């Protein structure tokens, strides 16, 4: 269990912890955009940069690294608010504000770092996508990989194959839910769901008639887990009722 210092505060963390974990343990806030607990860290937004010095380095020799994915080490010194770190974060936010000038999340973060208007040339045709990759990463994590990033460089975008409704999408809405700027539109009702241009039929609970899940999502989960489809067709409310009835029976037996 390595010990390290974050902004002067001593913390002890697990050996497989990241600098972000260490900062949180020390009660120090480090801003992030592309990080999400439970997903592999990606290191793309660069907002979580911190200054780091290894135990065996000279005292004044630091390296700028991303906290979300850098592993901890015994005796490390981490500084999350040095001048150059603040300045680097400022540049990152200033650039994101230029790409997404109308996006509230970015406007808020930029304001926190003293930026009201971007110093750069604003995107003439902006949307809210900050290219954090969370949508594609969660889709990969679920084992579907229906959408991906296309092109490269500034023209990089998130899209389904051929910009057509993605054949592999199961309509689980994880991408829309995880998106920090809510820029993935979708429609959902008790009968139908639509996302990325693809339409889904909702499976309804046989007892209550509530919409539970899409057929494709149920099939995907059933296949992955080996649990029968009927489990996924039941709404949470029905599941709780079943559970309550089971406990009731137990009570009686006693």
């Amino acid at each position: 269990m390595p010990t390290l210092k974050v902004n002067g505060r001593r913390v002890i963390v697990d050996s497989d912890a990241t600098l972000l974990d260490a900062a949180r343990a020390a009660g120090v806030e480090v801003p992030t955009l592309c990080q999400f607990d439970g997903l592999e860290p990606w290191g793309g937004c660069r907002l979580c940069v911190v200054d780091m010095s290894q135990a065996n380095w000279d005292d004044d020799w630091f390296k700028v690294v991303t906290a979300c994915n850098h592993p901890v080490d015994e005796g490390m010194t981490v500084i999350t608010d040095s001048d150059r770190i603040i300045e680097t974060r400022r540049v990152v936010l200033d650039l994101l504000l230029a790409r997404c000038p109308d996006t509230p999340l970015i406007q808020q973060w930029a304001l926190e770092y003293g930026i009201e208007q971007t110093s750069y040339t604003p995107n003439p045709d902006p949307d809210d996508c900050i290219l954090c990759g969370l949508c594609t990463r969660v889709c990969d994590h679920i084992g579907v990989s229906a959408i991906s990033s296309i092109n490269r460089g500034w023209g990089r975008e998130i899209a389904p194959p051929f910009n057509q409704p993605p054949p592999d999408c199961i309509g689980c809405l994880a991408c829309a839910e995880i998106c920090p700027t809510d820029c993935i539109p979708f429609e959902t009702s008790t009968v139908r769901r639509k996302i990325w241009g693809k339409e889904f039929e909702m499976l309804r609970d046989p007892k209550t008639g509530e919409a539970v899940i899409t057929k494709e999502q149920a099939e995907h989960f059933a296949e992955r887990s080996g649990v029968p489809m009927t489990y996924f067709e039941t709404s949470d409310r029905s599941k709780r009722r079943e559970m309550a009835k089971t406990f009731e029976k137990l009570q009686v037996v006693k």
Partner: protein
Amino acid sequence: MRIESCDQFEALRKQSLEIEANRKQQVLVCCGTGCLASGSKEVAEAFADEIAKRSIDATVDLFVKSTGCHGFCERGPLVVLNPQGILYTKVKPGRVEEIVEKTLVGGEVIPGLLYKDPVSGERVEQYGEVPFYRHQVRVAMRNIGRIDPTDILDAIAQGAYSGVAKALFEMSPHEVIGEVATSGQRGRGGAGFNTARKWQSCKDAPGERCYVLCNGDEGDPGAFKDRSIMEGDPHSVLEGMIIGAYAVQANEGWIYVRDEYPLAVVNLTIAIREARKYGLLGENIMGSGFDFDIKISRGGGAFVCGESSALMRSLEGKTGEPRAKYVHSTDKGLFDLPTVLNNVETWAGIGAIIERGGAWFASMGTERSKGTKAFSLVGKVKNTGLIELPMGTTLRHIIYDIGGGILKDRPFKAVQTGGPSGGCVPEELLDLPVDYEELTEAGSMMGSGGMIVMDDRTCMVDVSRFFLAFLEEESCGKCTPCREGLKQMLHVYGRIIAGKGQAGDLELIEKLAAGMQLGSLCELGKSAPNPVLSTLRYFRSEYEAHISDHACPAGVCRELTAFEIVEDGCDGCHLCYKACPVDAITGVVKELHVIDHEACISCGACLDVCPTDTIRTFPKHELEKAEVV
């Protein structure tokens, strides 16, 4: 045909040497990409025709060999005659008959085909005496231009795979690493990491197996040494990789070749096939018990795949997105297993290091940069081409003594080294010895070895913009500072070059540069500001002229520059008229020509061809003032 012992290899080598020695006359025609572009294939065919016409025995009496790139591409097609040692330059197929008749049969030299020194005006007969070659010490490129790269026996005769025999039969893997450590060789791809240390790290890393890779994704525009090595002596690469694989006990390797080098892919494929045939690759190499095989992987057209972690992603069939550097490739590289990735030139040098010893290699070069380095000398220099020299040679020696000085004797302005990650070195630093650390301290970088010479007709603001535009197209787009930063830098540069630069633009550039250097995920983004910062360091006044005076001192930026034919100097040669792509010049032969400013697009084609140097550039805004008056 499989070689199953060291003795058998020796016997084959001696046999191949004898065949070479028995040839009475050899004609070596350079068929590297550069000379091919000048028509050398037709020259080789013309020699074949002569042989058929004269019914000469083509195996002994006149053997024509197509070799790889000699490096002196400017003077191609190049033909070397052995045993005479004569070099003929700019050989056209039509002159082949004369060469056979006069030189080969008659024993007479044809002066018009000899290299003419641009400074002394003298004709040089001997290949080894030509200044371009005389100063060179060829280690990685030792056999290029001497062997037919598609003939493995020719390569073996010249020493290929002797290093493999020595390593496999006389040394342990530990000793091999020791020898490379003694040589002090550092990676020749640009990062300059110590080769032996990299191999040792891989050897020490836990894993069920490991891999050796060759980075043939030479993406630096202006650098073509790796292309020449892969095309002209693929065996040197295979040999190095076999020795390296033996050192780290890898059984599989890949050579990643960029898509834009089709001939390199062809010649490497042939070399691998031949090596397998002779038991120099595959199972039980030379009967030593060591198994190792190599496959080729072609790039898809992405500069970022020259970055080691991106290259490995590409080999895995993915997009070339680099990975964070905290995990070293020697611990988790290709398929998350320990991997050694080295550059083409690095591998090419290994065979020589093992054969001649690490101490020999370390006897050349400087304290921190041992051995020799290949450079591609290009741009506004008289002798453009590929050279290999000991580290520590000065830039002045390279550009003037070997390069012959600046094209058209225009004033030298800067030499750009290190590609898009490097910087520009100005005149006052010409005596800098070429060495990893010296170049970095001067604000540039060794990089791949590309040296682009620039004259007074090069605008440093335009050069920086060029590199930024290059990198913007090549950025993978994963991280914010690089993806957004490059685009925004270009916006500012666009303003400056159009004469709309604002006060504060230079400070904005510097701030953004710092953010990119610290914040970017990989070296592409981190080093992207280098050309910007180095040109600001040494040529700040040029930027200020663009911003404050709306002028481009070099006369390059089109929106800021107008052209005029000076009355006194014009002799009516009519060349500018012919060169102008938009017919903006009027004039009759022998009379003064005039440029129509309305039609002129300021491309500079006229100035480039004017033999009397009478076309001058001036700030375009002066035209408006003139009109107002």
